[in-house]
């Protein structure tokens, strides 16, 4: 029997082959912070388009998260 409790549907963030399920209804920035990632170090691609981190995540969306940091000797 169903509990009747409402659970927000998820969206998916994909980063370097790893998937993070995030709750819909919050900003991309907040979603990333919720999984302990710093939004300053990533870009977000939705359906092939770069989107800003104030976008509200909707249920069923799948974002590609692109890490921007590179490094080594300078």
């Amino acid at each position: 029997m169903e509990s009747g409790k409402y659970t927000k549907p998820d969206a998916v963030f994909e980063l370097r082959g790893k998937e993070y399920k995030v709750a819909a209804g919050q900003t991309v920035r907040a979603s990333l912070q919720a999984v302990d990632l710093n939004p300053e170090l990533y870009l977000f691609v939705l359906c092939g388009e770069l989107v800003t981190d104030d976008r509200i995540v909707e249920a069923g969306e799948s974002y590609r998260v692109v890490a921007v940091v590179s490094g080594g000797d300078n």
Partner: protein
Amino acid sequence: MRCRKCGEKAAINMRQHKLALCREHFLQWVPDQTERFIEKYKMFARDERVLLAVSGGKDSLALWDILLRLGFAADGLYIELGIDGDMQYGQRSRACVRKFADAHGAHLITVDMRPKYGATIPELAQLTRRGKDKPCSVCGVSKRYIMNRAAREGGYAVLLTGHNLDDEAAVLFQNTLHWQTGYLARQAPVLPASDAGFVRKVKPLCRFYERETAAYALLREIDYMYAECPFSVGANTIYYKEMLGRLEAERPGAKLQFYLSFLQAREDGFFAGAKEDEGLRSCESCGQPTTAPGQCAFCRMWAAVRLRKWESRGGAENPVVAQAGGR
């Protein structure tokens, strides 16, 4: 969020500038700003021959793209380091560079470490004390040497690299932590040519955040090497970048302010220690400039490698090999 210029949906928000732009206006803004920095810091003139070091990563390929769009006839220099491992890092990087050069009809110079100098970076790292547990150091010495030599031999007036603001801020932070005043004195958007043989080195992207160069590469659909160098895991610069990123998240513009304030302090003479040419002499083996007596760091490194190889063969052959310039 909307583009400040046209009101369309923004593709990127640059909090440090309080500026959001759509794809079209961002792709116009980046070259405009680059050209402004080239002029502001007097990096190079349109009639000068410029050589751009390209790794296959987002920054150098983005810079190449920007320069070509601005009408500069920039040639590329790719150094085959021999770093592959499971992910075929070198092969994939080279493919990205080659693909870009072919697509744009740009001239590409390739220097292959193994045939030219006798060992790849991973092999060098194994054979030297300098490279033990930190191949980035061996790689840095090699790249700086090869870049300067290629620029000199090719008759280029200026050598460009794709260092962005995050690169600069991370190194600045590291050098400040250790009060490396000599390094601080030499960190600048432009390092002038020296009589001793250093070509002018410039960093046209030094005021762009790494997010912006990555966004530019994505929006221009540049096929760049996304995977990191396998040796960069745990590198200091990445650690400092992540740390500065945390600061930036709380204080937008902190990285930019840190770097620009440093440049101002430098201009005001706070780091006016050793002059660029002071103490520079020619390496006794290859003739490239160095501050060290005798051989430069690159030639010393190779001398050590030859000695180690000789020892490993039981001293059967004479370790004295032709000077670095002759290999």
